[in-house]
Structures are given as structure tokens and as C-alpha cells.
């Protein structure tokens, strides 16, 4: 394993030091327990948005802390959900008197740790609501699994709910909007190569020189199907059809699309893939209102990509266009 790190056990705290140094005007970092808040937190009178999860998915979540998006992010160890004390302390630190929304990707560890955190918060009199993101259509049968995983829609949800909170909407409104975003969002990912967890020291899985993993999770969890590589056009078609068929998205639907890199895919290829998707979307009569192309929710150095589609209405597009000022997403204002 060759990584730009010192000791595997120090990766997360040392990366936090770098984030703090890189964004001194915008972020505050707590080390014990570990969380990141926007510099001006708590914002009085604003619903606080708190998310978190295992590290290794950067810019998610720490890179999305700032005006118009998250108030706080709690990084766990690499691919390991954060602990309740982190989430509780972060929530307390950013509470502006209007309660907090916990944004949780649906993994057993995240759910359990955030549950305990919410209990702790409520015991202290903080109002907490939670939204569970479970948009990964690669997980087919929710009955016999831990349920669909939370992946790409998380990014879009944090942006849209963040805008609503910034506008001063109340907790119930922001929470129900967030749930609606989750309901309207679908994702599917694939990998060309594995990632390597620093503490594990070797790749999580092996793929042959012509093998790919379809339906990969963002933790290098093996996916739905191991198969042979194919041209980008076919890959995008197959993945897009799976996503489109699930909601299902229909002709005339307005969407926000994200073509997301897993961390190790050249941007050149991501644009090529987006071009394939845009053509297909036009063919299907889908109206792509907004898009993101780049690395937004990653899996360390994994090569691969995911496609996320979110069905939107005017209100969501407006919230999307609201200013956002974070290390990972920035526009307007």
C-alpha cells in the first residue's frame, strides 16, 4: 500500500488538521470529539443540519459544511460511522435554538450511532429530527437486507435542505423536504478498481484486468454483479436504465443529475460519461435542469463512478440555486 499518510490510525485527525488549516475563515474543527462546524455556528434562529459518516468519502461530509449546506459534519474512522458522542457534541455546538436535522446514510452502523446520539440530544432538551438516505438501487431486496444504502442523493439532499434551513424554514418543514428529496432520488455505482482502507493496508477486493463491479457501495462493499468491462456508452446505458426504471422516472420529468467520481477516475472520463448520459436523457425526454460532474461522494482512491438522478420541481431547483459557500460546493451570494 502506497498512501500519502503517516500512521493509519492518525489519518482522520491529520486530515482534519489540514482542513482546518486550509479553511480557517470558514470552518472550525473540534478534535475531542471530532467534528467540523461552519465558522459562524451556531446560527441563531436557523435549523441546524448535522451529518456524518465514515471518512474516505471526501468531500462528503466535511467539505459540505458552510452557509447554505451543513452546519456540522462528524467524521468517523475510514469507512466507520462516527460515535454518538461526536454527533451529540456537534449537534449541541451548532444548535441555534430551532432544533437540528440529522442526515444519516442508511448503514447499520450509522443508524445505530445516530440513534443513540439523538437520544442523548433529546435528553438534553435539544429537538432532533432525522432523515435516512437510502437511494442505492443496487440493493434490490430491502426485505432481506439492511435496506438500501445511502449514496449520491445525500449530496443533493444536503444542498437542498441546507438552502431551506438557510432561508429560515422550520425543522418540520426542512425535515419533510429532506425526506421528499430522498424519496425522489436514486443512484447506482460501479467500480473498475478497489479502494484500500489505510488500516487494512491492502485492497478490499480484487478485480481482474477486465472485470468490473456493478452496484458497488461507497465502502468498497462488493456490488450486485461482477462482470466484464464494456464501452462507456453501454455502461452508462445499463446504469441509467436501472436508475430510471426504479423510481420510475418518466418522459418530461425534470431532474438534477450527478455524475460522480469514486475518487480515482480522471475528470476527463467523468465528462465523457456525462456526455453519454446527457444523450440518453435527451432520448428519453428527461429534462436535466442542473448537474454536477466530479468527485462528490467518493470511496478513497477507487476508480469508478456513480449516477444519481433526483426528480425536482420548481421549488427544489430554486433551493438548489440558492447560494452555497463550502469547500466542496460553492456558488452564488
Amino acid at each position, binding site marked *: 500500500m502506497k498512501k500519502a499518510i503517516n500512521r*493509519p*490510525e492518525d489519518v482522520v485527525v491529520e486530515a482534519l488538521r489540514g482542513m482546518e488549516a486550509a479553511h480557517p475563515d470558514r470552518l472550525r474543527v473540534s478534535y475531542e*470529539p471530532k467534528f467540523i462546524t461552519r465558522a459562524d455556528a451556531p446560527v441563531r434562529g436557523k435549523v441546524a443540519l448535522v451529518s456524518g459518516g*465514515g471518512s474516505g468519502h471526501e468531500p462528503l461530509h466535511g467539505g459540505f459544511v458552510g452557509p447554505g449546506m451543513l452546519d456540522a459534519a462528524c467524521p*468517523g*474512522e*475510514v*469507512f*466507520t*460511522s*462516527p*460515535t*454518538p*458522542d461526536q454527533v451529540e457534541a456537534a449537534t449541541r455546538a451548532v444548535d441555534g435554538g430551532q432544533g437540528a436535522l440529522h442526515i444519516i446514510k442508511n*448503514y*447499520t*452502523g450509522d443508524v*445505530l*450511532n445516530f*440513534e*443513540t446520539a439523538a437520544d442523548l440530544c433529546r435528553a438534553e432538551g435539544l429537538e432532533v429530527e432525522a432523515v435516512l438516505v437510502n437511494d442505492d438501487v*443496487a*440493493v*434490490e*431486496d430491502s426485505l*432481506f*437486507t*439492511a435496506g438500501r*444504502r445511502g449514496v449520491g442523493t445525500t449530496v443533493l439532499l444536503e444542498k437542498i435542505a441546507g438552502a431551506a434551513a438557510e432561508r429560515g424554514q422550520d425543522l418540520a418543514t426542512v425535515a419533510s423536504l429532506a425526506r421528499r428529496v430522498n424519496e425522489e432520488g436514486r443512484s447506482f455505482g460501479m467500480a473498475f478498481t478497489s479502494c484500500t*482502507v489505510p*488500516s*487494512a*493496508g*491492502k485492497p*478490499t*477486493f480484487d478485480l481482474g484486468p477486465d472485470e468490473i463491479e456493478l452496484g458497488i*457501495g461507497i*465502502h*468498497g*462493499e*462488493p*456490488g*450486485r454483479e461482477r462482470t466484464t468491462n464494456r464501452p462507456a456508452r453501454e455502461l452508462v446505458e445499463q446504469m441509467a436504465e436501472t436508475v430510471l426504471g426504479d423510481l420510475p422516472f418518466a418522459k418530461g420529468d425534470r431532474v438534477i443529475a450527478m455524475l460522480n467520481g469514486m475518487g480515482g477516475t480522471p475528470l476527463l472520463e467523468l465528462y465523457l460519461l456525462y456526455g453519454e448520459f446527457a444523450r440518453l436523457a435527451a432520448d428519453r425526454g428527461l429534462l436535466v435542469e442542473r448537474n454536477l460532474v466530479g468527485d462528490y461522494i467518493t470511496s478513497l482512491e477507487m476508480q469508478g463512478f456513480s449516477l444519481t438522478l433526483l426528480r425536482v420541481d420548481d421549488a427544489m431547483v430554486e433551493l438548489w440555486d440558492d447560494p452555497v459557500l463550502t469547500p466542496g460546493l460553492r456558488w452564488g451570494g
Partner: protein
Amino acid sequence: MAVTTGNIVSWIAALASTYGEQQSYLTELDAAIGDADHGSNMARGFAAARDDLQGDPPETPAAALKRVAMVLMKTVGGASGPLYGTFFLKAATTCPQANELNGDQLLEALAAGTEGVQQRGKAEVGDKTMVDALVPAVEALRESRTAGEEPAAMLAAAATAAEAGRDSTYPLVARKGRASYLGERSRDHLDPGATSTALLLAAARDHLAA
């Protein structure tokens, strides 16, 4: 023939060593059907629990178990952190006053811990999780105690049952946790959590009734 606070401290110290040594093995199991962090999660959590107990020795078994629970909750994360945390927390609640645990109390504590895990994680036996090792271990404790045995024998039976439980996960299709995403592809792998649970009971056998 009772379990002392000191036994619990030794047990946790032994687990810290065991998980340290077995870290890559557990992580490899997790790489196959999960996300390659179970080994470092367990090693980190139990090293912290050992340090905590040794830094400020607890007075009672309940205090020791509760401190372990708190440390695990704060340092492990993932699915296994809250589940093992709950295990020790629920175990602690069964013996608030005891200075040491007799066979009945030991059974009660570990049974309550296991029930706690099942309540939090909603897993049944056969779902390919740590529950597959915990439940048979508690059954073995209970049978052994019903047969009039003392903690040493009870724990020996429990450790054997946990190992069998661990092995029973090999052919199973996972229905809980991260491995469940794999469906049929989760077959023919040991569950990492059931494996760490078997190690937990093996260490209990060697240290809790010593």
C-alpha cells in the same frame, strides 16, 4: 468460583491483545463481505477499554462492564460499536450492586447483553451476524448452569458454542449488516462479527473464571 472485577479487567486486557493480534484476520473477513474495518474497529475499541480500566480500576463488575460499554460506544463506531457497547451496557444493568458474579449472575448478565444486541440490531439467529455466536453461547451458559456447573465450566461450554455459532455463519446468506448487500455472494464466508464474538467468549473462558 465467582467472577471478580479483576477478572473482567483481565478479560478486557486479554481481548485487547487478541484483537490486536487478530486485527488483520478480522479485517480480511470484513473485506470479503463488508468494508474492511472490523479488525481495526475491535482493536481500537478494546485497546481503549483496557487503558481506561487500567488507568482507573473499577470497583465492581457492573462498573467495569459499564465503563467498557462507554468506551466502546465512543471509540468503535460502525455497526459493531453500538452493538458491543449495548452488550456490555445491558450486562452491567443486571448486577448493579454485586461485588462479584456467581454462575446465575454471570448467565443473567451475558443473556441480558445478548438480548440487548438483538433489540438494537433486530437480527435473528441465521442472519449471519454476531447474534449467531452470542445466542448459542448464552444457551450453552444456561444449560451448563442448569446442570449445576460453575462459571469456569459454563464459560468453557459457551466458548465452544460460540465457535460453533461462528462456523455456522459460513454457509449462510447474510440478511443484516453490510454483508446483506451481497445476497448469495455472502455465502461461504465467516461473518466477521460472529468471529470477534467467538474470540470474546474464548477470552472469557480463559480469564473470567481464572
